[in-house]
């Protein structure tokens, strides 16, 4: 489609190390697109190739009908909000924002800069130097400096990474508002899965130089395609199982002696060894031996080993007979039983919330990654 950003077979090697590996990605025009992945997975390198600051080893970059792979950075209709802003310290805020317009010989600079400073709520700061602004204000100057050029694609490299949590949440809402207002394609790089999910309309989850999965946040969360996505985007319980048979639209899976039913379309594999996946908040905890809803999947014989009260919810850890600890989030609605450490419990959940992944994938992929970000 016109104006889409299309990466095909994009590869970048540094010596023998492959930072970005044969990446195919289409970013629709006007999208708020998040590139999410742990630190070191190749996000910045990908962005730099789109900006023209890094030359791809192989592959091509298309923007609309044009191939921009070989174009010099200053010839691309693409602007970047750099990871640590990279504001010009020798210029005041006005001149920082005006920089791109001056280079292109645009008229009416003053009016445009003032409009832009208004958009990012920095009216009256024009004659200050970057060093005189707070981190959040500098971030907005960096945004204004890039946006004023009305690029076809705006690249944002961890734009909120240097801000404290409260300011970050505030700026997430702000960025989203601005993107809606200007309608420019945003490619937003982050290692913060919550940030990606709240802001983007499409997320591509990246790991070790490749895209693991791409889709709307709710889709990715509901039906992760790999163990990495299952663990990196929120949390998952992954229980080992074997597919026994297919019955109509469902698969029947044996997991440590209990039968699990999963819709065929929620499984990545048709037979053999699998991971049966379930999100902690989709699991109900019940006293051992209690009745289940008909059709629910269950795992029985758990013992509560940890209870963490978090206000809106309580997080339980239950040790299963096969020595695996599973996580359960119970909403504190007041209508549900509460449990203490040592209680015997069963775990129940709906087949329609279950997902099935290939057992050859590492069940712990992406678990710690978010922390190191």
């Amino acid at each position, binding site marked *: 489609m016109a104006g889409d950003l299309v990466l095909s077979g994009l590869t970048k090697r540094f010596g023998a190390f492959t930072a970005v590996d044969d990446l195919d990605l289409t970013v629709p025009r006007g999208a708020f697109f998040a590139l999410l992945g742990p630190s070191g997975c190749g996000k910045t390198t990908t962005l730099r190739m789109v900006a023209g600051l890094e030359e791809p080893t192989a592959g091509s970059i298309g923007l609309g009908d044009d191939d921009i792979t070989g174009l010099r950075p*200053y010839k691309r209709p693409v602007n970047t909000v*750099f990871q640590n802003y990279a504001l010009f310290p020798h210029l005041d805020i006005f001149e920082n924002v005006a920089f791109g317009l001056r*280079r*292109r010989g645009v008229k009416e600079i003053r009016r445009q800069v003032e409009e832009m400073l208004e958009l990012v709520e920095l009216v009256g700061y024009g004659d200050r130097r970057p060093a005189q602004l707070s981190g959040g204000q500098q971030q907005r100057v960096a945004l204004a400096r890039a946006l004023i050029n009305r690029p076809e694609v705006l690249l944002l490299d961890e734009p909120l990474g240097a801000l404290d949590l409260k300011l970050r949440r505030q700026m997430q809402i702000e960025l989203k508002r601005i993107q809606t207002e200007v309608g420019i394609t945003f490619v937003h790089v982050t290692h913060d899965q919550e940030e990606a999910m709240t802001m983007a309309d499409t997320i591509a989850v990246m790991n070790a130089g490749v895209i693991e999965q791409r889709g709307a946040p709710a889709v990715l969360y509901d039906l992760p395609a790999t163990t990495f996505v299952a663990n990196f985007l929120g949390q998952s319980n992954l229980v080992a199982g074997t597919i026994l048979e297919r019955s109509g639209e469902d698969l029947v899976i044996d997991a440590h002696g209990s039968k699990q039913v999963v819709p065929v379309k929620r499984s990545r594999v048709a037979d053999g060894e699998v991971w049966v996946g379930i999100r902690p908040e989709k699991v109900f905890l019940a006293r051992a031996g209690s009745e289940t809803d008909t059709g629910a999947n269950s795992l029985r014989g758990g013992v509560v080993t940890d209870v963490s009260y978090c206000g809106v919810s309580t997080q339980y850890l239950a040790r299963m007979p096969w020595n695996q600890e599973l996580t359960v989030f119970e909403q504190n609605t007041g209508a549900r039983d509460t449990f203490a450490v040592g209680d015997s419990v069963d775990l129940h959940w709906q087949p329609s919330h279950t997902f099935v992944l290939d057992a050859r994938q590492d069940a712990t992929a992406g678990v710690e990654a978010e922390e190191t970000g």
Partner: protein
Amino acid sequence: MTALSQLGGPPAAVTEKPGRRFTAYLLLLPGGLWLALFFVVPLVSLLSASLYDPSGTVETGYAVTGHWQNYVDALQDYARPFGRSMWYALLTTAFCLLLGYPLAYAIAFKSGRWKNLMLALVIAPFFTSFLVRTLSWKLLLGDNGVVVDTLKWLHILGPDGRLLATTTAVVTGLTYNFLPFMVLPLYASLEKIDHRLIEAGGDLFAGPVTTFRTVTLPLSMPGVVAGTLLTFIPAAGDYINAELLGTPQQRMIGNDIQNLFAAGAHPTAAALSVTLMATIVVLVLFYVRRVGTEDLL
């Protein structure tokens, strides 16, 4: 420390401040004494010598008369070498900047793993004395030296053209001797520039030349200012290069001051020294103000 002392007893600020101040003074003491002894005392002695009655001699002593006429006489008699010194220093600074900027730029951005070697080469001349190096320039530029022969062969110099004992030789020697003082501060300020700022210039539609003009050059101004000062000031007061590579026609003010002191004309020599110093201070202040580096440095 601060946290502990705040827990009990008097506020930390009251107990700590005098101690800190004392330490600061203690640290200032050795340098301060040194400067008092070897800078302030000679300066006062120079200032008073410049006001001695010139009718005295070293042997008979001078009458301290507040003889301001010394300055008028000195300036009248030595205006030409004085102006020449300023002109040579200016030329030297300009050549050092023209040669030094590309060199410093290449070392800072393009030298890769050769960076340390190249820096060492810039400093290498300092391993030999200033005097010896200038003497070897004398040989190099000599009438039957390789350089003159080559230039004659290329018809750049006429058959009886020479290099030694010309203005070219003096300014070349000065440029050579002070080049490292230009390159090092330039390198230091170029090296410090965050590479992402240069990338940001490219990202914001500035081509390589424009990025240099609007980003790299302004950010390297502290180095330009430091380098030009470190070159101009010593070049203006230099007399070795004019002595060894020039003739009386290339005499700089340093040569005259040296000759006057040697001849025992202390009051005139002192008056010239003070004038040179004052001129340089005024020029430097004016220059720094004009370039407006107060907030860049």
